């Protein structure tokens, strides 16, 4: 009797155990500047004692296509398989983390059995700091600087800067040619709240990052423009 009940309880608990064991559940991937897509594979093994069927593998993002390699969805105990993730770099920059969820047969929609992570590092060749310069409404009109640093194997020059309205002027200050600049932004007055786009055009050969923009804002200390 003891053996029978033990077997019964074991059978009840087994489905709660992890069924797919991923060899590398978190993958770090370095993208190249001109990459359009990036593909990585997650190898797994059915670590359970029964066949499992993958019913869905999804990242919940149109930027990441997920497929079970070779269209094989059912795996015997101990059998290995692969999930392939194709990330579209789109307008992403810097480090992007995307979870991928895997549902097995019987999983509720809100609770997939397994998940893995794709962490993509996309180079940022032009960095602005800060992204927004601010003045207080009715306050001082002194200039403020946006630091522009290039991180690329070739020099990148700022070709021009412009502002979207006449309340502000902007000029380029070269710190190190092709490497480091400041964009000095000055308001003509601070009597009215407002927001201006500062457009920075460079000669970078990476189209996605060639034009940068920052903002200049005049606002009351407690509220926005």
């Amino acid at each position, binding site marked *: 009797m003891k053996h029978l009940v033990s077997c019964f309880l074991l059978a009840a608990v087994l489905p709660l155990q992890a069924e797919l064991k991923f060899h590398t559940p978190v993958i770090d991937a370095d993208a190249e500047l001109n990459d359009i897509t990036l593909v990585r594979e997650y190898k797994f093994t059915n670590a359970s004692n029964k066949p499992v069927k993958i019913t869905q593998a999804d990242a919940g993002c149109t*930027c990441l296509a997920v497929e079970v390699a070779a269209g094989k969805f059912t795996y015997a105990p101990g059998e290995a398989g692969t999930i392939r993730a194709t990330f579209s770099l789109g307008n992403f920059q810097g480090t992007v983390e995307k979870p991928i969820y895997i549902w097995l047969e019987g999983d509720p929609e809100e609770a997939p059995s397994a998940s893995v992570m794709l962490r993509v590092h996309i180079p940022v060749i032009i960095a602005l700091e800060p*992204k927004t310069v601010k003045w207080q409404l009715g306050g001082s009109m002194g200039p403020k600087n946006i630091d522009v640093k290039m991180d690329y194997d070739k020099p990148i020059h700022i070709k021009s800067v412009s502002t979207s309205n006449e309340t502000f002027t902007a000029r380029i200050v070269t710190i190190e040619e092709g490497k480091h600049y400041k964009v000095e932004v000055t308001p003509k007055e601070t009597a009215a709240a407002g927001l201006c786009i500062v457009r920075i055009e460079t000669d970078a050969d990476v189209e996605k990052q060639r034009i940068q923009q920052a903002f200049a804002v005049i606002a009351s200390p407690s509220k926005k423009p």
Partner: protein
Amino acid sequence: MNSLAQLAVVGAISLAAAGGSWLLRKTPETKPAFVCDPAVIRADEICLADVKGDALWVDARSRAEWKANGIKGSVLWNMDPKEDPNAMEAEAAPHIAAAEQVVVYCGSEKCGTSREVAERIRKLGFGPEVKTLFGGWDAIKSSSVAP
């Protein structure tokens, strides 16, 4: 105990477990309403019920989805490679600068794009509180906020 009795005991346990499960789940064939517990969500997320009435909604889905059923007054900001990121940022900026609270939503609970967009909005440094909506569109579609 003979085999028949053992089988009866196992059957009784199975029935009891199934009955308990049915009682706990009440009506298993009915999908539960979207639930958001503020105590368990991430610090950068917000439950739909806690969004302020004058919050600015930022739609991180595709332009087609936003046009089809985006929340009234929302602005579009996504990571679609077909979009011009500078133009999208420039169009959204005045609205964000004027808002007290900004809430970003994307297509589902597991969509991470809203987090990316929220991070970009925070980096603008305009000052409003920026949150991602827990549940994304799944939370919105069955609510009074839905268009």
